């Protein structure tokens, strides 16, 4: 219970901080806040027009009142109006979220499976040729920036080989049905590959490190001393323990994965929330940019909270704490 409420409090606090940053930035940034909030060159207006505009959006009220209204707006779903589309920000975001979740979720699954498999294998062969080879290769992958990987993949698979489409999530004028699903998957391959290349490294490194650490523990010696075979030692004893830090690091990775979408979605023109951030920067559509930022924060915090609450399921030491002396 203690742990439960503590985690919710911590995430609540983070959310609050993110909201406050979002509120404060346009008001504190150098320049006229009206410009950021209205998106127009306010200086061209007459004083009367300007004052009218300001009072319309409430910028002439005391700062605390503005803050209160802003928070209330977030809760009631009033996230502002997009300048570019003239639609509520929430409506625009709702269109984009499914694509981001599809892309991020697929990339998470692929990179975790691949990273753990390689990590366990490398730890098993630690210090040997296989391990060093995989380790260096993965560190190389890990050092490549996502947008560059994306551009190279486009350059090779779309431009040069013409195998896979490089833009969008659905073909224009889609037919629907099975062929549409295939098209969606085809358009998912390159972005997922990019995210996998850039995220497989952290899963691999933490898996390998946790496995190597676990394999040094006294209970491994004991397992060997009681005659457990190599497979049993690696999977039943070492991996079962190494899962705990791996799980934690994967939850941390959610943040970089969803955040990293900004870059990858931009390069592939993928219609997710990340791409929306980029588009609204270009269009100076600040309400949408801030809304997209908040949404990503929401998603990351919610995912982390769920992962945190599920942690006792895999760690008996947390599950059954201090029952006996």
């Amino acid at each position: 219970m203690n742990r439960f409420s503590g985690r919710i409090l911590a995430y609540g606090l983070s959310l609050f901080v993110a909201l406050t940053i979002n509120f404060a930035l346009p008001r504190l940034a150098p320049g006229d806040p009206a410009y950021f909030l209205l998106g127009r060159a306010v200086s061209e207006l007459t004083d009367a027009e300007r004052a009218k505009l300001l009072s319309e959006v409430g910028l002439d009220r005391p700062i605390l009142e503005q803050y209160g209204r802003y928070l209330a707006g977030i809760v009631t779903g009033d996230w502002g109006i997009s300048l570019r589309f003239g639609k509520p920000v929430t409506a625009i975001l709702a269109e984009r979220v499914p694509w981001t979740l599809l892309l991020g979720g697929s990339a998470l699954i692929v990179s975790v499976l691949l990273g753990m498999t390689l990590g366990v294998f490398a730890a098993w062969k630690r210090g040997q040729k296989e391990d060093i080879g995989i380790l260096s290769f993965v560190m190389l992958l890990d050092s490549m920036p996502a947008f560059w990987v994306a551009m190279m993949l486009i350059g090779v698979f779309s431009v040069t080989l013409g195998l896979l489409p490089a833009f969008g999530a659905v073909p224009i004028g889609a037919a629907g049905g099975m062929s549409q699903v295939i098209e969606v998957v085809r358009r998912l391959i390159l972005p997922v590959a990019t995210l996998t290349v850039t995220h497989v490294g952290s899963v691999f490194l933490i898996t390998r490190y946790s496995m190597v650490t676990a394999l040094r523990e006294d209970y491994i010696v004991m397992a060997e001393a009681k005659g457990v075979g190599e497979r049993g030692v690696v999977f039943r004893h070492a991996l079962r323990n190494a899962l705990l830090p791996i799980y934690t690091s994967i939850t941390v990775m959610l943040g970089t994965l969803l955040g990293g979408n900004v870059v990858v979605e931009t390069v592939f023109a993928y219609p997710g929330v990340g791409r929306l951030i980029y588009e609204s920067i270009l269009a100076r559509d600040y309400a949408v940019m801030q809304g997209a930022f908040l949404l990503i924060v929401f998603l990351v915090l919610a995912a982390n909270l769920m992962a945190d609450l599920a942690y006792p399921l895999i760690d008996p030491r947390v599950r059954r704490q201090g029952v006996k002396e």
Partner: protein
Amino acid sequence: MMTRSRLGRAGLIMLCALICLALAAPLIAPYDPYTPTGRPFEAPSFSHWLGTNDVGHDLASEIIYGARASLTVGILTALLVTFLGTAAALVGGYCRGRPDFALMRVVDCALSIPFLPLAIVISVFLGPGIGMEILVLSAILWARPARELRAQVLSVRERGHVQAARAMGAGNFWIMTRHVFPVIFPLVVPQFVRAANRAIFYESSLSFLGLGDPVYKSWAVTLFYANARGAFLTDAWLWWILPPGLCIAGTILSFAFIGHALSDGAHSADAPHRRSSKDRPMPSSSEDHPDGKCLLSVKNLVTVFDTARGEFQAVDGVTFDVNRNEVLGIVGPSGSGKTMLAMSILHLVRPPGRIVEGRIVLEGTDLLGLTASELRPIRGGRVSLIPQNAMNALNPVIPIVEQVAEAMMVHRPLSRPESRRQALGLLEQVGISASQAEDFPHELSGGMRRRVVIAMALANNPALVVADEPTSGLDSVTRREIISLLNDLRKRHGTSLILISHDVRLVRQVADTVAVMVSGKIVERGPCSKLAGSASPTPQVPMSPTSAGSAPSEKPSAPVVAEGNAALLKVNNLTRIFVSDRMWPGRAERRTLNGVSFEVKQGESVGIVGRSGAGKTTIARIIMGLIRPTAGRIFFEGRDVTDLNHGARRTLLGRMHMIFQDPYDALHPGMRVEDIVGEPVVIHGATGDLGPQDRRRRVTEALEDVGLTPVDQFRRRFPSQLSGGQRQRVALARAIVLRPSLIIADEPTSMLDSASGAEILALMRDLQSRHRMSYLLITHDLALARAFCGRLIVLDRGEIVEAGPTEQVIQTTRHPVTRELVRAAE
């Protein structure tokens, strides 16, 4: 190990090359990257190595200048991040309490908000510019080093040498700069490297989204233009996109390599631990003739360690036999190769150790001649191990009954329910009830966990059990229970036993034959009764000089206290209530001390004895001012010292001092002997009257006093260059350098082998006769207290249950705890 340094060197070379490129950019670059020098989209040629971009800028020059921007951001950000993170970690980890709590909530927030979107939003509002980028990235990246370093600070501040410094009255600033920072510094460097890596990574992402500095073009800015201006529409993408990306990847990779080489975890992680598949079994000879009686025959066994300075022979030509039903005790000081011998017998030696020659013949089979799969049925089946640190030998995430059942299932064709049933029976035999069988190891006490390990070792009725220090770390009562359990079971199952220990007394209780091991060799061997006089309760320095009894050899000649002596230390009604979680008041409250009162007179030695967890160490820590009592007062030399602050406590420094249990931990690893011993003088001198000359003289005297002579040989050494006994001597020298009137010694010998322990006790007694100080000795070992102390206080669950002159307490025991302790000491 090899890979680690090689990768690190590769990283350094790459990084140096890039830095040179950045510094020498004006010399190397063929053109000014900011003016058009060719036609748009020119292909690579002699005049433009990498072609030109859409407005005719030379791409090679752009990349060479780009190194400046990228590296500047990376390195400056990393410096700022490391500084902020370290400062936050030191403040939070050291102050604890509210500042730490607040700081950690900030860190939580900074870590849970996704980095890149946050950086994007901030940079959009703050506008482009390289200085702004550095600030934004630092504001986002400092949190992780802060959290990781704080965890280190928290663990360092619990270390013995920090506690020792606090007990000396050192101030916060002194401790932070002298004791905490030097220890965590090696961990700060990898944090810097990682911060640089991340900074370049995020800078490139920001720049790529068009948020970089458009004037000061970094590699990622080049890529941004490539993407924005349709490089893909032409063939230019290959030379426009590939080279800057490679540069970014190369820079990040070089930092990653260096970081990997520096990281603490990788330090040992890369050493190959598993026996490689190439490891061929040794040729086995057929001349072994097992007779019916001989179970195990070890012949000329040599096990070495590969170290940086060549081979170290841990086991050096050991030969012995074990008969059926025999108990062989192997005793020797720490570092004599006993554990390596135990591991060798099961052929479980891991690199960097390896067996180079010899034979281990068990029931007619040479174990060294078997392959891994042939060994498996023997390990745990015919010979099993009770490893050293049996506390940690259980898998923390598997219920104990399953771990015992597993030991059976790998050797016998049992169904899961059947093996569970048998495991339950076995646990019952070692005294663990069925209701505890589903428990996880963390729910059991140390003694209970050992019982589980014993159950596992006996699961398949092995012919031989190798028990390596099966009782270390247990209090004397539990130790006794474990030994008698082991002995009973062994008799019942008809198992032979090799009992390895540094504790002669323990071995003598159980073993038929004793072998003495010194520096990898067996120097003496014979029936137990012959080696040690069986009558006297304390062995008379039996076989070899290095393996004396754990209690001092002479009969107790503890100083008798003159009744008229004044009370030096007076403790009145000391109570401490431990609240487990301060955030939620009213939770688990535990009285660790309850109304404890006693006195120590001038020149006397008082012992506080009790089982572990009785509250003995808490008393010592309260007296030294390391923790505060909930109630009660302490008077020292007639003055109330209960609530003294740091400054006032410093004046007590010359009057009382403490010796800690663990000599490995109580000395700062990075300080030289003379500085360690001189530290109290310096701290004291800050308030007082002692100059450097005086300090040197006092240090010399103190080192002479504790027998570290010739002094000049020890003066400049680091603790790592000393043996355990020598370290405890240094701790003793530090304690007496200001000639205190009271020394509190908390288990001063328990981490030492018996010979060194006996020497330390003799030395302490010798110092007392010369300098007339009092001792407050804290121990679980009644034999030790009996030999050393004139008066005893028996503590149980935070209360004094018995007190009085030593012999009186022992002869007329009234309390069951005292009786247990007396029995355990026999």
